[in-house]
């Protein structure tokens, strides 16, 4: 039995040690906002926060996750009120198919927590998630808008 802290809730799951956090979140905890895109840490669709840091959950075995580590998924990020990144995304109509966007939003919110005033170059370097619909232009604009709002 592994114990996890997901979105502020302690959950117990009975899974094999090598099960990636992604599949624990999706299939055992039942939160499907976090997506599978590649399974090899390439695309970022599976991004969650582990103690605030954007983490690709598809390659993180559950055995490497401690109960003390706070995992936040998209369902937890905007639970109380929409995160400024989500608001910026809505305002700029960033999403196309939307499949990559949860990962994008998790990556962007973590980036802004660490760097409240990122330059274009910072954003281009840090946001390495894949979007096959090609929303990159609006993602860039969305991060900047959210940063502006968060700085107040």
């Amino acid at each position, binding site marked *: 039995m592994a114990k996890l802290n997901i979105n502020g809730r302690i959950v117990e799951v009975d*899974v*094999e040690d*090598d*099960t*990636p956090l992604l*599949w624990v979140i*999706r*299939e*055992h905890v*039942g*939160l*499907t*906002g*976090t*997506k*599978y*895109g*590649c*399974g*090899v840490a*390439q*695309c970022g*669709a599976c991004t969650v926060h582990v103690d605030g840091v954007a983490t690709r959950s598809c390659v993180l075995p559950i055995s490497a996750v401690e109960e003390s580590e706070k995992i936040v*998924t*998209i*369902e*937890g990020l*905007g*639970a109380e009120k*929409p995160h400024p990144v*989500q*608001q910026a*995304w*809505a305002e700029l*109509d960033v*999403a*196309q*198919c*939307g*499949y*990559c*966007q*949860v990962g994008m*939003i998790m990556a962007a919110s973590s980036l802004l927590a660490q760097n409240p005033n990122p330059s274009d170059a910072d954003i*281009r*370097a840090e*946001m*390495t*998630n*894949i*979007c*096959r*619909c*090609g*929303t*990159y*232009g*609006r*993602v*860039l604009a969305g991060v900047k808008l959210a940063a502006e709002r968060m700085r107040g």
Partner: protein
Amino acid sequence: MSTISSLPAVSRRGFLGGGAAMAGAFAFGFSFPLPGRAVAQQAAREVNAWVVIQPDETVIIRIARVEMGQGSLTGLAQLAAEELDCDWDKVRFELVKPMANRSRDKVWKDLSTGGSRAIRGSQDYVRMGGATARAMLVEAAAQGWGVPASECRVSKGVISHPASSRSTTYGAVAGAANAIIPPTDITLKDPEDWTIAGQPLKRIDTMDKLNGSLVYGMDISMPDMLVAIPKACPVHGGKLKSFDAAAVSGMRGVKHVIKVDDETVAVVADTFWRAKTALDALPIEWDEGENARVSSADIAKMLREGLTADTPYVGNRVGDAKATLGGAARVIEADYSFPYQNHAPMEVLSATVRWTPERCEMWGPTQVPDAALDTLASAAGLPPEKCEVHVMRIGGSFGRRLFTDYVRMATLIAKQVPGAPVKMMWTREEDMVQGRFHPVTQCRLRAALDADGEVEALHMRISGQSIMAYMRPNIMTENGDPIMFQGLMPGGAEMAIGYSFPNLLIDHAMRNPHVRPGPWRGVNLNQNAVYLECFIDEIAAATGQDPLALRRKLMKNHPKHLAVLEAAAKGIGWDTPPEKGRARGLAQIMGFGSYVAAAAEVSVTNGELRIHRIVAATNPGYVVNPQQVDAQISGSFVYGLSAMLHGECTVKDGRIEQENFDSYTVMRLDEMPDVEVISMPSGGFWGGVGEPTIAVAAPAVLNAVFAATGKRVRNLPLKNADLNMS
């Protein structure tokens, strides 16, 4: 709020798919909507097939084309709402299911979505649906008041009769409106008068994409559901010889190891990870067949032979190009090639099927709901009346789900596990290897120049793979595949060439390798635009002409093609030199009924290409949502430039070598150029938006690369070229 309302219980009205989305509301929250929410809870009243109005004034517009990110869902809702004169803030949507379409005599016509046709292929009857509903609602109100309908007015869903100062609402008369005989003498609005259509409105299906609550096919969950992961012979056309189920059947969670069909095995387990772990451990033997040793080099050789082969299929002929080339003062010649590409949508293939001897249902993404229903029924061994496809929004598709191979596969698996919902999920690796690939082609171009450098003749020989020969043999003509010549046809409203040459020959030698091809966003326009537009640039360079000046000369009989090119050139500032170290390139083409052009500005430093800016101009006739057209163009450039820069699926030992994004590299934010979109709808025709512009990004950049380096990259992707200046 979410498609979950149809999972698994069929919503009360049977034919309603999907859920209703809030327009404008920012409804975030942790909770998932309950089944049957929104649509089914009120006595929703159907005015006609397209419009349902609830007593609380919610307007539900039925969407009969598939939404996979392209935004047509919102565009179609705008068109219907425009004619309906309803309050846009009250608009929700529902996705139409194919069984409903079938049982109502195809009242929603063709549900399939491809070829950039979602809007242009249905705008007339969708608008008519909205306009007819409006007329019926007004007539119902007028009859209630005993006044002529012509004396009534409508604004935002409120019907008034000014003469008697009475008013009512759509919601109040919707029930009575349903009984009104639909009028047939309706005139649609002039697009000049549009107030909802034509506006840069936000999508109405966004909110659940931002909080993770949108249930995609991959996310479906049902009580007692099992997960199946298939693996097919990696060499297309090969067979499954044997597998050792006993080696994995004791692994935790594994329920079944199944032969799906002659080429596929699947592990069925309680979760994805357990199914995948068992599948990876499953000993499988393949009979790889005659293509087991084929490599990319073999395929290239096969295509090269086609560059000079006789008896090709002629797509466009003017005068006698071959004779002119034979006697020309000067001939320039170049060979190009375009590799296999995988669609690689972010959401891999999946389908959830529940089969019993009496009924079979599928929940899952498809671009062709009607065909998916047929496939489901035939694989299930049941009449379509006992089947249903629950249509879903898709996490990207780009053409891959025009095929229903995976629907058949999921059904054959579910049939072996009667009664249980089985979610078949592909791994990214399976999705990459079992794609329906952008076909491979090569092209030899030869131009005859007279003593003054004027083009007397052009011969363009395309050699390579036909999508339709594999996908739809029934539309092949006796000579070949008519869609090979996208963008190169003599005329017509769909894909006409924008140049006039005194002598012209464009022909195709079909060479079909065993790798399965499919329509990939832009289809054959992608390579045709690279071949033609880069070679026009080669002619300009060989004759010392400015690429724009040469095109102006050759395009004078093609004003619509030229207009978008001029706009893109002006946008990039073609008349003034770029800043030092930068260079520019142009390209134009017509496809999917639209005229498109691009101008790119690049720099190459130490062999590294950087694309700074691309200006895109498009004339799609009409624009229903300008900000979504922007998104489509910018997004299609990412897709097209990804292929041009990195995309390449190579074949070794008969199989595709690239299995994931670590080897099939795609563009990310760091490479994204600034994209400026010039939308210049002229009216008078309806062209597509999702695909055409993709084709001009690559040649515009390649031409700019030549301008920057003097190097002509003729074989894609560009990553294989050395851009260092020697």
